[in-house]
């Protein structure tokens, strides 16, 4: 379902998708009608550890500069840098933060639903990943049905 952007063929692929998805994102509630008509890229960069945008994320953003809307799901310390470049952003609690918080609840269900809602709310034409996929990033939680600390 997810297509990882490669460094080649972006414009071609984009052109095709624009035709396919034009104004066809009824569930993308975070897009204005104008943005719904344009292309949307969603980048999962959950494991960005540096204070600033990593080289890999910067490169990915550069590759996606043709998209009207770019949304990055990343740690919140990167928000300022992303905002200054005109991007949108979302975040998810990091596994370490979840563990440290001591909030015990159905994290598996919550994260699965939240990841799905991010996709639905932005209606991306492309998804890219810098670092692990969200499901991999949260693997210990999403597969830990019996883990008393987190389930």
């Amino acid at each position, binding site marked *: 379902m997810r297509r990882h952007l490669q460094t080649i063929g972006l414009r071609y692929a984009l052109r095709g998708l624009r035709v396919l998805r034009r104004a066809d994102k009824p569930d993308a509630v*975070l*897009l204005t009608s104008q943005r719904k008509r344009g292309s949307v890229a969603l980048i999962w960069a959950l494991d960005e550890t540096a204070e*600033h945008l990593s080289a890999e994320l910067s490169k990915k953003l550069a590759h996606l500069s043709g998209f009207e809307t770019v949304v990055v799901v990343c740690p919140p310390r990167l928000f300022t840098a992303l905002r200054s470049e005109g991007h*949108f952003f979302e975040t998810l609690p990091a596994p370490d933060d979840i563990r440290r918080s001591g909030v015990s609840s159905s994290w598996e269900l919550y994260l699965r639903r939240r990841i799905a809602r991010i996709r639905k709310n932005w209606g991306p034409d492309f998804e890219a990943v810098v670092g692990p996929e969200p499901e991999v990033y949260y693997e210990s939680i999403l597969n830990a049905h019996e883990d008393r600390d987190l389930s």
Partner: protein
Amino acid sequence: MELDVLYLADLRFPGGTATSLRYDLRACRLAGLRAGIVPLSSPLFPRSLVPNSALLAEIQATGTVIVPQNERPRARVALLYHPSLLDRTVHVHAGFDADVFYVVVHQPTRDRRGRSYYRTGTWAGLAADWFAQDLRLLPVSDVVRRDLARQDLSHALHPCNWTNLIDPADFPQKRTGEVKGPVTIGRHSRPSRDKFPSPQVTLACYPRGPDFNHLMMGVPQDFLDEFETLPSNWQIYPFSSWPVSEFLRSLDIYSYFHSDTWIEAFGYNVLEALATGLPCVVPHYMNETFSDACFYADPEEAPQLYDRLRSDRALREEASSRARDHVVSRFALDQFARKFENVAEAPRVSSPASPVKRETSEKPVVLSVTSNGIGLGHLTRQIAIAEALGPAVNVVFFSLSEAIEVARSMGYLAEFRPFHRRLQLDVEEWNGFFFQEMREALSHYRPALVLFDGNMPYSGFTDALDSYGKSYCAWIRRGLWRTPQPESIAREGAFDVIIEPGELCEALDLGYSSVNPDNVARVNPVLMTQPHQLLDKTAARRALELPENATLCLVQLGAEANFDMSLPRELLFDFLDRHPEVIAVDVRSPLHATGHADIHERFLLRRLFPLGRYLKAFDFAVCAAGYNTFHENIAAALPTLFIPNSNPETDDQDARALHGARAGWNLASTADDPYEIETQLRKLLDPEVRQTLSLACGRKTGCWDGASQIARQLRIQARLPDSFQVPER
């Protein structure tokens, strides 16, 4: 949790019910018994009515346990402390176990004309269904007992009353002296129309004339409006405008008559007057409660009694002793142990119907929701409150602020949702999105308390709260609104408590946030950093890598996202050019700065949050007058030129800067007046001016604990754990 007495009580009663609970708690402690409270909300009051402050203080002073939301306490005696709480809207979520359960009936079930206050027919069913208990009633007096018997509730009546108590030490006896001139007759009650007779009868029992002065505390406006002209010998005081004991000590005689529809269940106000040793003139039926301690009369007979008492000092002295003795012997705190033993029963054998004890070691979650804002104000206050709530709860931030990293970096779990303004979305559509996100978060986190800081609770947010329906909801809302905000005020009903952090410039507040003053609790200013937590100058400069010997000027002109501060900045650059000994340090939040590079060798940039601890690093400051900066700088006694952000969407920063300047705490200038800015900057170079400002700020002490006050209040009202250290018995 094991208790002797569990009070299931509403902490918001304004009058005798709350006062009697206060003294019960004190007496319980003196008797060596352990009391706990489950705060409930009676349908008698608006949802966010402010709790009774004297009762809150007593809870703290006595170390009374507030039963946390997730605890199921066990008590020897459980008391549902007002019949209005026997209502379908009132529910004790985690339940309780008790050897015996009673409803304390503080009010007759009907007025004198037979109009019902309660549907007594549903009481037995509600006691069984809501509290899993049989209906057993404890009237506060024989007046109530007789009324309950008339309602066919004799079978549920306990043979003893739950008599109200008082601490005579709180009501020093007034010495009876000669009355020179008119005799002072007084009364006090909550300002309800029922508490006063008709105007005609009132004039009969509180007559005009040179021989009497009538002091009345707590008079409803609709009653006063019934008079074309008020008698000149009446002095009216608002409810609770004096401490009751002081008010009573200003009187010679106490006289209390009320509407012919009202029946006084007990007459706590009369008990207070008797404790003060005042001769009391009251209606005949109160004889049942106070026997020979009072003078009983019809309203029109009262003036004759006043005359007798005025002219006969011996009679007044005898009445005073009788009144005081009666209170001490029948209503003093030492009566509590007997009162308790009268109603306690042998421990109940574990009933099969009792629900399984709910035990959990998990800390309750406080979901801290902050609106977007332009700066960091909302988030900063929420962090200050989160810190004050302490480790007994798990605070999770759920914010629309793009600076949410500041909460995360302080160790809090932090969630972010995008705000409509940056997305350029239609507000209605965005509210649909936010409802979904909020509702999901509420179900996931199951917060014991939802804490919102913002001036406008979004409909998506309040709808989600309503839909979830299981969290206690608090709205933290700073005042100083520039304009009326009826839409915002209309959303007060979504909250159980509304708290306004204090403003030093309260006097200039136009009151637009206080349309319903009884619903808004006020506390001292909320600061993230207390004055005693500040690093000294040397340590702060080292921590920020600032030169140790330079004259340093802190610059905080705000996000500038909604207001142009370019002129003040320009003038500041000119000022720096002319004064090479000064180094400016622009401290920005992570929300508003990406790089670390200094702008110039004498215009340094620091990216920092929170700044509070480091304020002593600076010799003076040039700042916008946002809530947090204004109060933090004054608390830190940092000489500051405040240049208010005058955007109409913000709070009234102009008022803040102006008030501070008039009080001598700071200098002030508008952002569009280059001459004034230049003049004020020059002043800040003068060490004497700086010292004068510092000293003036330093005089504001003992008023910076708003966050702790909020935390204390929320621990009680939202039933969060570790309310207080229980004092040693």
